[in-house]
C-alpha cells in the first residue's frame, strides 16, 4: 500500500497533465474549425475546375496531347507524402507512414525518390535512408500558399523534365471530425479528363483563343489546386486527430484521478483505524 503522501503526489501530477491535454484539445479544436473552413471554401474551386476540364475535353473532341497528360514507360517514380510537423496527434502520422511503406514495397521495382511534407515523415524516411529530393516542413498547422506552389513547381518540373515518370501523392482526406480516409493518388501525369456524356450537352463551344492554349493555362492551375486541396485536407485531419487524441488523454487522466482519490481515501481510513486501535489498546493496557 503506498503511503498517503505518495498518492497525493501522484494525484497532483496526473491533474497537471490533465490540464495540459485539456488545453491542447481546445487549441486543436479551434485550429480544426479554421482548417475545416479552409477545406470547405477551397472545394468549390477544385470541383468547378474538374468540371471545366471535363467540358473542355468533351467539346474539343480531338485527341489531346499535352506534356501534363504524357504517359511514359515508368522507370522512375516520385512519392509525395504529407504528414504533420508535430506529434501528439494519435495514430495520424503512423497511419500515413504505414500506407507509404506499403506503397514503397509495392513499387520496389522502380527507382524511387521521396518529397516529404511535414517534419514527421522527413525524419522517418531519413532514418531509413530513402532518397529525399526535397522537404517542406514548419507549416505551423496552416496552409502556406507560397510553399504549396513551391511543391507544385518542383513536382511538375521533375515530371516535365523527365527526372521522374510518375508522381504519387499520399495524404489523409478529411471526412468529418472523427473520420479520415487515407488516400493514394496519382498526381502526375494528370489522368485524361473523362468525357462528359450528359444528355443534351451542347458540344458547340467557342474557345478563346484555342483549346491548346486553354489547356496550357488550365493544367498547371489544376495541379496547384489538387495540391492545395490535399494539403488543406491533411491539415484538417491532423488537427482533428490531435483533438481526439488529447480528448482521450483528458478522459483517461480523469479516470486515473478518480481511482487515485479512492486509493487515497482508503489509505487515509486505514491510517485512522490503525491510530484508533493504538489508542484503544493503549487505554486497555492502562486499565488492566
Amino acid at each position, binding site marked *: 500500500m503506498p503511503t498517503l503522501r505518495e498518492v497525493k503526489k501522484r494525484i497532483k501530477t496526473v491533474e497537471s497533465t490533465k490540464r495540459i491535454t485539456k488545453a491542447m484539445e481546445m487549441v486543436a479544436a479551434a485550429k480544426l474549425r479554421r482548417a475545416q473552413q479552409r477545406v470547405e*471554401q477551397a472545394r468549390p474551386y477544385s470541383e468547378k475546375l474538374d468540371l*471545366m476540364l471535363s467540358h473542355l475535353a468533351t467539346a474539343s473532341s480531338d485527341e489531346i496531347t499535352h506534356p501534363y497528360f504524357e504517359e511514359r514507360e515508368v522507370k522512375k517514380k516520385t512519392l509525395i507524402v504529407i504528414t504533420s510537423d508535430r506529434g501528439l496527434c494519435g495514430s495520424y502520422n503512423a497511419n500515413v507512414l504505414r500506407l507509404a511503406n506499403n506503397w514503397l514495397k509495392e513499387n520496389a521495382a522502380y527507382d524511387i525518390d521521396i518529397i516529404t511534407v511535414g517534419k514527421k515523415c522527413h525524419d522517418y524516411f531519413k532514418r531509413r535512408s530513402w532518397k529525399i529530393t526535397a522537404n517542406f516542413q514548419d507549416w505551423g498547422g496552416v496552409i502556406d500558399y507560397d510553399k504549396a506552389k513551391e511543391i507544385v513547381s518542383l513536382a511538375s518540373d521533375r515530371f516535365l523534365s523527365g527526372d521522374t515518370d510518375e508522381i504519387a501523392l499520399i495524404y489523409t482526406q478529411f471526412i468529418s471530425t472523427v473520420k479520415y480516409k487515407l488516400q493514394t493518388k496519382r498526381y502526375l501525369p494528370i489522368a485524361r479528363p473523362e468525357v462528359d456524356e450528359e444528355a443534351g450537352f451542347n458540344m458547340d463551344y467557342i474557345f478563346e483563343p484555342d483549346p491548346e492554349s486553354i489547356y496550357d493555362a488550365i493544367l498547371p492551375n489544376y495541379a496547384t489546386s489538387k495540391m492545395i486541396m490535399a494539403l488543406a485536407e491533411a491539415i484538417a485531419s491532423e488537427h482533428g486527430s490531435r483533438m481526439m487524441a488529447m480528448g482521450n488523454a483528458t478522459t483517461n487522466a480523469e479516470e486515473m484521478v478518480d481511482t487515485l482519490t479512492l486509493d487515497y481515501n482508503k489509505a487515509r481510513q486505514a491510517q485512522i483505524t490503525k491510530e484508533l486501535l493504538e489508542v484503544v489498546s493503549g487505554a486497555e493496557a492502562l486499565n488492566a
Partner: protein
Amino acid sequence: MFRLSIVTPEQVFFEEDIQSLVVPGTEGYLGVLSNHAPLISALKPGRVEIRDVEEKVHFLSVTNGFIEVSKNVATILCEAAEFATEIDIERAEKAKALAEGNIKKVLDGSLEFDLDAEKAALERAKNRIRIAKEKH
C-alpha cells in the same frame, strides 16, 4: 438574366443572377449576355464589369483565370477577385513598388528571383490600381 459565379481557391466570391457581363479575355474584352453560346476562355488580369438585375453596374479586378459559359451559367475561376470599391490602393501601390524594385534587382543581377513571376505581380498591382482609380 443568367447566373454568374466567381470562384477563387479561397472562397466562392460572388454568386448571383445578373444581366450582362464583360470580362478580360486573353484576346480582348468579351461581352456576355443571357443565352450566350457555350464558351471557354482564358482570362488575363483586368476589369470585370457586371450589370445586375437592378441595372446597377459593378466593377471588379480579377487576376489570371478562366471563364466558362454554358446553359445560361457563367463561371469565372480566378486566383483572386476584388470589388473596385474595396481595393486598398495603398497596398496595391506597395505591391507595385516591391515588384518594380525586385525586377530592377533581378535585371542587374543582385537578386535571384523568377522574373516572370515578378512581372506578373507588377501587372496585377498595376491592374488593381488602375481599376480602383477609374471613375464609376
